[in-house]
């Protein structure tokens, strides 16, 4: 009796390992891992060409840049906003939209959060909701333009990135109560303006010996889990994904595609907005009135692609990209920290080829299993 039980268990386990390579998730993960390896190898060769004697040191810094718990806290701190923008881009991808405007939505979210926190003295949880609203408004605009005027969302969201950045600059400059009195071109330190608006630390800063540590990363993970449930376990999520697969077919099936485009962009924008809120409400970063777009929005694109637009995958890819970036910061001044961006861009390029990578994996596995079958038949 006991023996047969263990046999069943054994069969189940071996069945799992046989099925594993054929599962969709496994292939996506393998494709991502292969992309990452190729990206890192490319980065290494690039460093080798640029400065042969320091290349080994450079790649070591990138791979093992996080040596202590403080750096680990920094990694979590920078992972939270890009996790949110990654979710934003990923959700839009699932609906067949390319939201390249996460940067603008992130900026608007940041402004809403800082404004409500500093001027209206809202506590942090309400300020995050304000950030959500700000991002949602800025995400809705490209959605409306797509649904009603047939303007491609890539073009319109790029335009709204710039409009949003200049608008927020204009609004911040004209709200002197928000600005740092000494420097003038940035918002004031949040703790001085409204201590209750700083995202709580719950003692984590002591545990991680770092001021960068707070509960922001956990909030971001909660958002990811919620999005996972919405996309995979609700009718609403199913409709969104159906629109992404085939807009015309889903319209025939009675799904309102126009409404879904707008709703998807609103959700996407809201998520990006929360990213801005989490970053600036941590109380360390001050919004700088500058003329360049915020990169956290664009970093959402590789995060989403690497995570295969799956909210759970995005959690891991955000942590990974943040890991690389914190490691990359320590490359300076020998190499520019943009080395990381080069590596990430190669990773995205490879993940654009994910279809090929997946078919290659599949064909290798198939060849393996055919050989196995042939062997078994011979026996």
């Amino acid at each position, binding site marked *: 009796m006991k023996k047969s039980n263990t046999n069943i268990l054994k069969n189940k386990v071996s069945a799992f390992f046989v099925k594993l390579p054929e599962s969709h998730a496994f292939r996506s993960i393998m494709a991502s891992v292969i992309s990452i390896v190729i990206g890192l190898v490319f980065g290494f060769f*690039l460093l080798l060409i*640029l*400065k042969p004697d320091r290349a080994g040191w450079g790649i070591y810094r990138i791979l093992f840049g996080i040596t202590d718990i403080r750096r680990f806290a920094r990694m979590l701190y920078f992972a939270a906003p890009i996790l949110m923008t990654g979710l934003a881009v990923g959700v839009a991808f699932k609906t067949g939209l*390319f939201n*390249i405007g996460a940067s603008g939505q992130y900026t608007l979210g940041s402004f809403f959060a800082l404004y409500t926190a500093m001027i209206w003295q809202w506590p942090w949880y309400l300020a995050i909701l304000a950030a959500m609203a700000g991002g949602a408004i800025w995400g809705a605009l490209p959605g409306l*333009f797509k649904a009603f*005027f*047939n*303007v*491609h969302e*890539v*073009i*319109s969201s*790029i*335009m*709204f990135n*710039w*409009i949003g950045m*200049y*608008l927020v*600059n*204009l609004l911040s*400059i*004209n709200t002197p109560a928000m600005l740092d009195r000494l420097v003038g071109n940035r918002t004031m330190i949040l703790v001085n303006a409204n201590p209750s608006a700083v995202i709580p630390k719950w003692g984590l800063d002591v545990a991680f010996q770092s001021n960068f540590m707070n509960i922001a990363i956990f909030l971001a993970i909660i958002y990811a889990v919620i999005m996972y449930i919405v996309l995979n376990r609700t009718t609403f999520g199913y409709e969104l994904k159906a629109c992404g697969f085939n807009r015309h077919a889903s319209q025939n099936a009675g799904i309102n595609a126009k409404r879904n485009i707008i709703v998807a962009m609103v959700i996407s924008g809201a998520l990006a907005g929360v990213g801005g809120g989490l970053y600036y409400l941590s109380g360390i970063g001050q919004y700088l*009135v500058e*003329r360049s777009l915020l990169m956290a929005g*664009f970093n959402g*694109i*590789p995060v989403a*692609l690497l995570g295969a637009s799956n909210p759970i995958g995005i959690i891991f890819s955000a942590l990974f990209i943040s890991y690389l970036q914190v490691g990359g910061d320590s490359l*300076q*001044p020998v*190499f*520019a920290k*943009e*080395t*990381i*961006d*080069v590596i*990430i*861009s*190669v990773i*995205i*390029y490879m*993940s*654009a*080829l*994910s*279809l*090929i990578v997946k078919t290659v994996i599949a064909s290798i596995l198939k060849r393996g299993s055919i050989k196995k079958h042939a062997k078994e038949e011979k026996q």
Partner: protein
Amino acid sequence: MNVLGDILSLTIIFTVPLLLVALGGMFSERSGVVNIALEGIMVIGALVSFLYMSKIRDSAFAAATPVLATLTGVAVAAVAGMVFALLLAFASIHLKADQTIGGTALNMFAPAFAILLTWTIQGQGQTAIYTPPWARISPTVFGADLQNLNFFQRVFLKEFFITTPLAIFILILVIIVLYKTKFGLRLRSCGEHPQAADSVGVNVYFMRYAGVGISGLLGGIGGFAYALAAGAGFSATVSGYGFLALAVMIFGNWKPLRIVGAASLFAFFKVISAMATAIPFLPSFQKISGGEYIYLMVPYVVTMIVLAFTSKRSRAPKASGIPYDKGAR
């Protein structure tokens, strides 16, 4: 009058990169490949050609024939842009990858690579490559008096680079190639209905490679022209001009002559927004601080309004953005 002359003069030199890059994008889309990588292609074109220009900066060749030296710079930019664009072509044509994602990767790669490379070559933190003084053709070459430029000299000669007449030449060439040659007809057919083109013996893959290759060529030259127009030099960015060029292409309805109109309109608004404080008849918004941001927003707001009105009627090449699959019906 002088201010107006300056505005028109700057409008011309900023129209040049927008026009060239938008024409490039048009070639790519007309062949059936969405080229969102124009921004990155511009950066690579400008980077490589400016490295080359700074290399020959003090050479006897440049001193003797500055115009010819600048033209070799144009050629270098064209080749660099084309090679870089082939990365997109390879991924999206042969490997049938998602064209937008591949393009995004190239857009991210180019400026990061430019910073990494200039750091290594010029030293820590020094990412700017300066324009050699001989690249700009002074009005005195045409016999104008620098102190007393008349209106037309101010408009056409005050800021004059060899890329301006080159752009006009390229525009004429593009119209002829696209509408009056067998190659142009075949290229357009691949963007509309590749299966039909294939059935009459057109090599769709080759045509798409050609389309993306030409877009890289023009994009590279456009990047070079932008870096010249920007003034001091090239510092790892073309500040969104590649994306603006995409909007210009859509607004121009994928047709060369309308693209000229669209490009000059956008360039005009860009120049107005940059020079707003120097223009006497524009309101200066003295009651609020940071009024310049209102003007900086203008070109993008205008783009959105224009796109809203024109996109309903716009007709993109039908097969643009769809990988060609021989087996599909």
